């Protein structure tokens, strides 16, 4: 059903932009009690060691130090900080603080003191004697290495995920459709390549922040900059053995997450010390800690083989992946599976396909959830090798894609085989405007005007492209819920568990509610993510909010409308069917009552009652958004330096609930993807120390690198989505690495297979090619 909508599909400004711009108190640190104890963590200087002894006496003597906790003060409860639904598909391999330290930055002790200065002094006064081991830093040598990152007992998987710590394996996976090796052997053309992706950092501008306090009713109240408040509550309860009923988690305004705040970080330590001392605590990560001691993207090596017939029908794709989860296996299996499941179905007409590999432990900063979640790694490899195949076939890479890519009404066996940590869900593409996205993108970018290149002396202009798909939530697993409450005067509250982390979900969910209730957006006041006051939601991850939480809001609004009509029918003494409601007034043939009057009556005068509608939604499928991304660059052949001139995106995310905010999601994703493609180095020394551990050395794109972005949406209507919408939070990040690699190839004829694509790599590839000629 497509009707003209009043609030949905309109470019409303986000509901909270003004107060934020004006600097009002909003974020976790702004809301911490003034007398909160400041927490600082002593972190390991070694990539792998066992604590022989730890002496906190001198630290405790410093005036103003409240307590110092080490591994001896915590019960050894193995858990995963991943912040996923329960039971988690990640191994329970982490202890609150352990006697082992497994990466530079791992927790050794936590200090609580009256101020930051004192806390830092106390940290310096702790002496630790370590038994230092040779770390596993090369992920390609981790499997079956004689050094075990997790030699300890008491760690386990919740269900089979391929967890085998005695081989340094956090997870493993294998799936095959038909006989890949045989099909490859029978193919006219086969291309083979290995691709490497780096440990990109999230760099959300607000560092991880938490504060905790005990309220006057003896409940533990935690404010956390988190993407998953309900999972945070559950994990704290499990690890500290506090009943769930004693914990309230509130998510205030969050300054960006991108997956980096899906996991739990300082919350356990803050909760523990507040419970122990009865005092409020606060922990704000330094930027160095965010780099060294939170999460990165999983670095991977992907070995790809692709076969085709002479005329360009892709016959088989074979992918072996090796993923580096670092010291802990958070999201180990699921990120890895997405590398296959949200990438390989792009070419659904193959005769055979295989995806398999290992996720290994190493002694480096753990990897975790990150926007794109495996898909960006897989997309870089697959969309690069598609262009390589086209070159080998002497075929236009666009034509090769058009011949083989997924289309509306089609499916892929992969949807049913691969889910996130478990089996997947079969589904047909009810909306897939990929072909339009591609054609429109070519037109907008004037592709054939430059293709393959335009040369002016040393300067070469070229374009490169990639297509991508993502998902809309995790079907049958992650639930979202919403409550709508009618107030006197006829305005509504919308309470959602869904977590606005800056992406604007409060606004788009309010738009869905306003549309359903035919009211103005201003008439809906939203509260999100307070574990005591709002209904449950799994959280802001897996591109779930618009589709899953949005559907819950849609249902709740319909439910509320029904209740309103029932009350109006009673007052107007007619049948429900005889009433016309335009959002403001209920009209029958001879009478009418306004929503305002009805709600006031319900509160104060007649058959008084509170109208509240709650609905929940869990997806039965995960309709993928699709896009085509085209980068335009200018390369200097003499130096390898290049400039990004434009990035064209045409996206099918169903009906964008808010075209402006959807565009923000796409463009923000594109630029973050360009960061991974071109700028963001994450090198480690041999000893496992991150070299770029601050914002001086870790370069994210600035206004100097990004000049123009061209973004459009395809006309599309996903029947199962709220008002035709699919999700859009991640898809934008997927295409830049492959598009850039393809553009560099089009420009100067060299193929870069490892990220980031730096001028040095380009120049040395050019030199190498010249030497060979």
């Amino acid at each position, binding site marked *: 059903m497509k009707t003209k909508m009043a609030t949905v599909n309109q470019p409303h400004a986000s509901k909270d932009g003004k107060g934020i*711009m004006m*600097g009002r108190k909003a974020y976790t640190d702004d809301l911490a009690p003034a007398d909160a104890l400041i927490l600082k963590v002593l972190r390991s200087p070694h990539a792998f060691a066992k604590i022989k002894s730890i002496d906190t006496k001198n630290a405790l003597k410093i005036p103003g130090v409240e307590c110092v906790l080490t591994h001896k003060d915590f019960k050894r409860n193995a858990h995963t900080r991943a912040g996923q639904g329960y039971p988690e598909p990640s191994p329970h391999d982490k202890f609150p603080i352990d006697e082992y330290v497994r990466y530079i930055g791992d927790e050794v002790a936590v200090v609580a003191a009256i101020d930051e200065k004192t806390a830092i002094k106390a940290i310096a006064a702790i002496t630790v004697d370590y038994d230092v081991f040779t770390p596993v830093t090369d992920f390609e040598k981790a499997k079956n290495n004689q050094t075990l990152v997790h030699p300890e007992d008491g760690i386990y998987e919740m269900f089979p995920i391929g967890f085998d710590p005695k081989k340094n394996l956090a997870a493993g996976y294998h799936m095959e459709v038909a006989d890949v090796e045989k099909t490859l052997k029978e193919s006219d053309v086969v291309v083979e390549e290995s691709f490497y992706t780096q440990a990109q950092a999230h760099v959300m501008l607000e560092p991880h922040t938490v504060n905790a306090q005990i309220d006057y009713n003896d409940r533990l109240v935690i404010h956390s900059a988190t993407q998953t408040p309900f999972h945070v509550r559950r994990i704290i309860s499990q690890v500290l053995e506090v009943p769930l009923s004693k914990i309230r988690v509130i998510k205030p305004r969050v300054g960006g997450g991108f997956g980096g705040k899906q996991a739990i970080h300082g919350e356990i330590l803050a909760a523990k010390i507040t419970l122990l001392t009865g005092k409020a605590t606060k922990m704000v990560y330094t930027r160095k800690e965010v780099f060294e001691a939170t999460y990165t993207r999983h670095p991977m090596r992907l070995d790809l083989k692709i076969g085709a017939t002479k005329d360009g029908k892709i016959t088989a794709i074979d992918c072996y992946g090796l993923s580096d989860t670092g010291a802990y296996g958070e999201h180990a299996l699921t990120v890895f599976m997405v590398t296959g499941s949200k990438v390989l179905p792009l070419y659904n007409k193959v005769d055979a396909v295989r995806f398999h590999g290992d996720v290994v432990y190493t002694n480096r900063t753990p990897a975790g959830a990150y926007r794109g979640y495996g898909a960006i790694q897989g997309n870089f490899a697959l969309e690069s090798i598609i262009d390589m195949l086209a070159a080998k076939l002497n075929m236009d890479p666009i034509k090769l894609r058009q011949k083989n890519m997924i289309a509306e009404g089609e499916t892929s066996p992969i949807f049913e085989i691969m889910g996130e940590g478990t089996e997947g869900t079969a589904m047909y593409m009810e909306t897939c405007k990929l072909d339009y996205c591609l054609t429109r993108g070519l037109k907008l970018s004037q592709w054939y005007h430059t293709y393959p290149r335009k040369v002016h002396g040393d300067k070469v202009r070229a374009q490169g492209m990639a297509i991508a798909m993502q998902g809309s939530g995790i079907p049958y697993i992650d639930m979202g819920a919403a409550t709508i409450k009618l107030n006197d005067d006829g305005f509504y509250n919308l309470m959602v568990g869904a977590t606005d982390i800056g992406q604007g979900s409060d606004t788009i969910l309010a738009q869905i509610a306003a549309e359903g209730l035919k009211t103005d957006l201003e008439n809906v006041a939203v509260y999100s993510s307070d574990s005591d006051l709002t209904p449950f939601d799994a959280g802001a991850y897996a591109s779930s909010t618009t589709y899953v939480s949005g559907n819950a809001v849609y249902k709740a609004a319909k439910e509320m409308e029904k209740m309103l009509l029932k009350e109006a029918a009673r007052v107007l003494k007619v049948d429900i069917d005889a009433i016309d409601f335009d959002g403001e007034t209920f009209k029958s043939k001879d009478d009418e009552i306004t929503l305002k009057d009805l709600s006031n009556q319900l509160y104060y005068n007649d058959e008084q009652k509170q109208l509240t509608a709650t609905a929940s939604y869990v997806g039965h499928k995960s309709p993928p958004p699709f896009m085509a991304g085209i980068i335009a660059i200018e390369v200097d052949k003499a130096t390898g330096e290049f400039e990004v001139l434009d990035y064209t995106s045409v996206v099918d995310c169903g009906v964008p609930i808010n075209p402006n905010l959807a565009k923000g999601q796409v463009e*923000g994703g594109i630029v973050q993807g360009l960061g991974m493609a071109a700028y963001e180095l994450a090198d480690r020394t041999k000893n496992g120390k991150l070299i770029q551990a601050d914002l001086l050395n870790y370069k994210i*794109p*600035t206004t100097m690198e990004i000049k123009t972005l061209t973004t459009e949406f395809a006309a599309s209507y996903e029947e199962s989505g709220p008002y035709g919408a699919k999700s859009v939070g991640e898809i934008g990040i997927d295409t830049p690495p492959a598009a850039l690699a393809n553009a560099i190839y089009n420009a100067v004829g060299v193929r870069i297979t490892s990220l980031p694509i730096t001028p040095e790599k380009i120049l040395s590839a050019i030199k190498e090619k010249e030497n060979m000629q």
Partner: protein
Amino acid sequence: MVTFELNGQIKSFHIDQGEFLIDTLRRHHVVSPRRGCDTTSCGVCTVLIDDQPMPSCALLTARVNDKKVTTVEGIADFAAELSAYFGKEGADQCGFCNPGIALSVYAMAQTEENIDDDTIRHYLVGHLCRCSGYVSQTKAIKAFLEGRK
């Protein structure tokens, strides 16, 4: 004891030795300058010192004695107006970078004539934003400045 003009009012503060302005301000409930880095790289903590944008995370409070300090709380109307343009362009996301940007735009509007895209990009280069992709921000700022003419 340090005395300076904060958002139009003369104020005196007791400070610790080596205290940075961001901490003095936040302790006294002026929370718009926030910390995003340890290396004066992000711009989230920006304040205006005598109308010039500066990172308050690296500025000793003692050094602003007798100076004029402006945070976004001191240019509330300007910020509210700018935010309407951010809203129109879809440039609002997490907003952690926004107060700092508002101050730099304010300084730019005071200092520069003939502001074009390059001027805006130049003023924004010290303001990292991980959410927006920058282009919508630049467009919003341009439209805002047009609207003020």
